[in-house]
């Protein structure tokens, strides 16, 4: 059966996939908050939350319940519409980026081949960039609508920081795209999966480093958590927020972390590729499940590194942040791009002489 030239089964399949992925992301984000507290505790020689349920596993639900039960305060001078729009936008933007991430290869269910990716659009990574920049509006609108100078300062900081670091991020990404020759995340992952092909990290260690630092900045994670600087700006843009609206902001941060980990895993660490194993020898369903587990493992490792960094180093000063972004990372990313271009040319032309010959022409 078709509706508007679309197979209705495809529509159902995608809707189910969207529901599963959104709820799974939220569930993982829920437990990421728990993991954050636990990792912080372990790094600081304390046991961390362990009272709610076995090993404290019910702690995130207790936290969530607490947030929901809190009084919903909207400041009297705040712009009410925008005040509510802020956290909603932050959350929506965070969840939207999961649409193009290839969670695994395809499974065969009920005689249908189902791709474990909501939409394999050919500009995948650009879409992620677009949506992530939309997330900045969540911070800006929230900070501005609170009608509070601390919130506004935090919003300004957040916006300028995100814009500065997106540049370096994009430039470091170009080098990866030069190697892959495609913007689709699925194609990029499949290229890294081919037998004999190495993960992109082998070709782009510098690019990965720049991308990782920028991802930290984009997620507003320490050492780049200037928008919510607890000690200077009283929690910044979400200072006036309470109850679940605050919860949405905090949650969006964790969802963003998961998504940027997933993107990094796809771009540099082979996505759902299992190292030293040819997936083609397995049956497609088994390969898909193992691939999903591989991707989740990579995401968990990235999340741990995110937390490890957070509980190790202090916040940058604002001028240091801008210096690092504009004067260090962007030149480095440009250099990396040139270097990559040079090596690609070298590979195409074969020898050094033929490359220099190209320039002399």
């Amino acid at each position, binding site marked *: 059966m078709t509706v508007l030239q679309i197979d209705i089964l495809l529509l159902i399949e995608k809707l189910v996939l969207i529901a599963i992925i959104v709820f799974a992301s939220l569930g993982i984000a829920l437990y990421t908050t728990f993991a954050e507290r636990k990792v912080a505790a372990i*790094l600081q*020689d304390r046991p961390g939350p362990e009272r709610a349920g076995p090993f404290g596993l019910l702690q995130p639900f207790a936290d969530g319940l607490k947030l929901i039960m809190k009084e919903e305060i909207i400041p009297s001078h705040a712009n009410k519409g925008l005040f509510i729009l802020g956290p909603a936008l932050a959350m929506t933007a965070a969840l939207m980026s999961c649409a193009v991430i290839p969670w695994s290869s395809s499974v065969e269910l009920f005689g249908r081949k189902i791709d474990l990716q909501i939409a394999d659009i050919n500009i995948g990574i650009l879409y992620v960039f677009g949506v992530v920049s939309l997330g900045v509006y969540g911070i800006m609108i929230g900070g501005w609508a609170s009608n509070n100078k601390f919130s506004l300062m935090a919003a300004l900081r957040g916006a300028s920081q995100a814009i500065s670091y997106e540049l370096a991020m994009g430039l470091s990404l170009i080098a990866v795209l030069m190697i892959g020759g495609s913007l689709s995340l699925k194609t990029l992952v499949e290229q890294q999966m081919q037998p004999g092909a190495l993960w992109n990290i082998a070709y782009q260690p510098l690019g990965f480093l720049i991308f990782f630092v920028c991802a930290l900045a984009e997620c507003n994670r320490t050492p780049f958590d200037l928008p919510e600087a607890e000690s200077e700006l009283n929690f910044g843009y979400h200072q006036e927020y309470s109850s679940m609206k605050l919860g949405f902001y905090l949650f969006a941060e964790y969802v963003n972390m998961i998504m940027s980990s997933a993107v990094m895993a796809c771009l540099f660490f082979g996505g759902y590729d299992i190292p030293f194993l040819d997936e083609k020898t397995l049956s497609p369903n088994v390969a898909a499940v193992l691939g999903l587990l591989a991707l989740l493992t990579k995401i968990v490792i990235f999340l741990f590194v995110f937390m490890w960094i957070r509980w190790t180093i202090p916040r940058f000063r604002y001028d240091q942040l801008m210096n690092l972004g504009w004067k260090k990372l962007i030149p480095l990313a440009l250099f990396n791009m040139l270097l990559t271009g040079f090596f690609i040319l070298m590979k195409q032309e074969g020898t050094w002489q033929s490359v220099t010959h190209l320039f002399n022409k």
Partner: protein
Amino acid sequence: MQALTNRSRAVSRKPLSFWESLYLPAILKGMMITFKHIFTKNPTIRYPEQKRPFSPVFRGLQVLNRDEQGRENCTACGLCAVACPAEAITMEGAERQPGEEHLYREEKYAAKYEINMLRCIFCGLCEEACPKDAIYLSETFAPANFTRKGFIYGKEELLIPNPITEPEAYALAKGGRVTV
């Protein structure tokens, strides 16, 4: 001026080299330090289940003692109240009636005996002053309370359990504290 310690050092205002200004080596060094802490044993005492062992001469909450037959030792002489530097102890004496010999060891006893735990400084002078071995400091401490009134401990809180009817509770309350 002579320095108190030899640890003071002039701050280096040297501009960072390029490698340093990337912050990476310093960050990696810091991350290795925190990584090492994953493997260190944590010193947490999980309080209600685990308790910190106190020194044998720890001076905690006061206990009003009984003798082996379960009779109260206190005769309400008031020496502890006089000795108390914080003036935390008040009491009212009463005369033992015929038929109460199994409750009180001597003819006079404390009908009311109160210690204000907010005033008490746990110095142990009451224990030293007592001629009847009726009050001594135990190994426990006063738990938190919601009201100030809750910190004024009467005889119900202070009196040690009867060694004949409740021997286990008596042993627990008596504890292993060394009295000097």
